[in-house]
């Protein structure tokens, strides 16, 4: 077995055994890590693989969450059926946005701003949609926390941990497969040089569309999980641009375009945020804003000194070849 495989096996065992070893607080942090690992992986398909910068992924989290939650509260449709509706809604939304943007030749900064505009537009729209609770929020019934009802996604934190673990693992495997598929290679060609890719006969419009649709569909699942885990949805929170930024920090810090980057980024950022909270409390500096300043300074330092992310640097130390080629700086 190669070194990479051994490390991976140990990692998987620790993840499976985790709920037996830790308390509820650590478990909730672990769920958060897995959530960001998953959404980071989904965003990475679009930006890390295909080079299309989206700053509006909260749009898909929000629409996914609201679709499944609305079906559940208004029509008693369970989450496992709601997932399909949520994915369909988000993939359609992604397709519409991608179609408009790519047909009209919008790229780079302009594309990123378009994704923000769509997310903000939807946020304010949902704020005024009374059927979905408007700005007052949409709430899901919480029955018994001690009963695990997997069919309706109602239950204990341990159940949510395993659901999120399964999602994150599936996303990892799916992305590993994608990277080695024909589409994966086409995406990387588009990312590095779109004109050259086109000259080689790649239908860049079709493959960029594919990246957006896959990424938005994957993100929709995270939204459904979010809705059933937190049981309350507010447009102001779920569609907010800071949610989009949270999603993309992990993969960028971890290593854009790599498979382990989003996972590592999610672990580091969540632990960092938590560590800062503890540190600030220990130092008695508990005034609003202190945490985020520390967090911002750390991000600033990482971007300044490790522009390619942390995973490529660690992987070479451990003697593992980073999976997926990281984006080359030009």
């Amino acid at each position, binding site marked *: 077995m190669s070194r990479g495989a051994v490390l991976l096996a140990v990692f998987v065992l620790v993840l499976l055994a985790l709920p037996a070893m830790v308390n509820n607080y650590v478990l909730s942090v672990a769920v958060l890590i897995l959530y960001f690992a998953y959404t980071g992986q989904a965003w990475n398909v679009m930006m890390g693989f295909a080079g299309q910068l989206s700053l509006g992924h909260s749009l898909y989290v929000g629409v996914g969450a609201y679709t499944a939650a609305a079906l559940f509260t208004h029509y008693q449709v369970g989450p496992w059926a709601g997932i399909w509706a949520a994915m369909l809604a988000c993939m359609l939304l992604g397709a519409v946005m991608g179609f408009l943007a790519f047909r009209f*030749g919008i790229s780079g900064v302009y594309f990123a701003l378009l994704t923000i505009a769509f997310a903000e537009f939807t946020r*304010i729209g949902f704020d005024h949609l009374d059927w979905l609770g408007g700005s007052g929020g949409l709430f899901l019934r919480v029955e018994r926390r001690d009963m695990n009802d997997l069919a309706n996604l109602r239950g204990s934190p341990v159940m949510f941990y395993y659901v999120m673990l399964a999602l994150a693992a599936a996303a990892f495997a799916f992305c590993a497969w994608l990277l080695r598929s024909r589409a994966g290679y086409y995406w990387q060609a588009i990312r590095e040089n779109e004109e050259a890719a086109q000259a080689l006969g790649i239908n860049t419009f079709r493959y960029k569309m594919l990246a957006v649709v896959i990424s938005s569909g994957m993100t929709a699942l995270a939204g459904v999980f979010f809705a059933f885990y937190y049981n309350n949805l507010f447009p102001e929170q779920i569609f907010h641009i800071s949610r989009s930024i949270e999603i993309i*920090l992990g993969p*960028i810090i971890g290593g854009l375009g790599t498979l382990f980057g989003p996972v590592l980024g999610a672990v580091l950022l969540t632990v960092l945020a938590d560590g800062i909270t503890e540190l600030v409390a220990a130092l008695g500096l508990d*005034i*609003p*804003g202190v945490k985020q300043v520390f967090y*911002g300074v750390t991000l600033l330092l990482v971007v300044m000194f490790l*522009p390619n992310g942390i995973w490529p640097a660690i992987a070479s130390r451990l003697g593992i070849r980073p999976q997926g080629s990281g984006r080359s700086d030009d």
Partner: protein
Amino acid sequence: MSVDVANVLNLVLAGVLTGLVYGLMALGLSVIFGVVRVVNFAHGEMMTIAMYATVMLFTALNLDPFLAVFPVAAGFFVFGYLLQAGLINPFVTRPEHTQFMLLVALAMILVNLLLMIFGPDARNVQLDYLLESIELGPLLIDRGKLYAALVACATAAAFFLFFKYALLGKAIRACADNYLGGKVVGLNVKRLYALTFGLGSACLAVAGCMMVLLVDVTPVLGPSYTLLAFVIVIVGGLGSMAGALLGGVLIGVSEALAGLYFTPSAKSMFSFALLILVLLFRPQGLLGKRP
């Protein structure tokens, strides 16, 4: 003239005046992007700092915001210059997402520093003449808004003349048109970038001083003004100075009318809808040149 028509006209007029201040804010972003090619994701946060500086100068020294323009703009010029020279210059050749991360981190630090120092409560300046208005037939013009808009116009005109006629302004435009060409003819491009960022920040600072006359300031205003500035420059045309003012006025009026015909909380939905339409059908903006 019926009351309704006069009412609408008053709102449109107020929208135009507010829009000119918005336009000045966006002008700073447009100048920076047009030359340095870096999107300043901390734009609104920086303006919020200028607003706090104005409020502080007023409460501590009783300095009128129209006089506070000078020290605040000078301070922001230095701040912008140092920011570009020290932090952003190494990033100008890096990929867009890295620049974005850098400025998002900066924005996060700035907005939360304000929160730490000033707390979440709203602050404002209380001046007697802000409550007065000028009557012009059926129209009521708010004096504070009118003066703020005039200062915005004067500042924009000064910038326009500087970039059109001053040697330094021409040199900056040369760098913007052709980075390599600028270097070849012996321009110190990095220094000119820093100057541009300083000038853009000074412009933003003037807008911030004027904005204090229109709204109460809280730390969380920052991110929403950043988005507003993006909307305006894209609608007007990134890099076009007249476009920024036109975009500002359009957004100001659309906000005012959305507040009348729908609900005020839905006003920025119209701005974003306008942004999406412009991006799709005229991506260079209303007054922008095709790249």
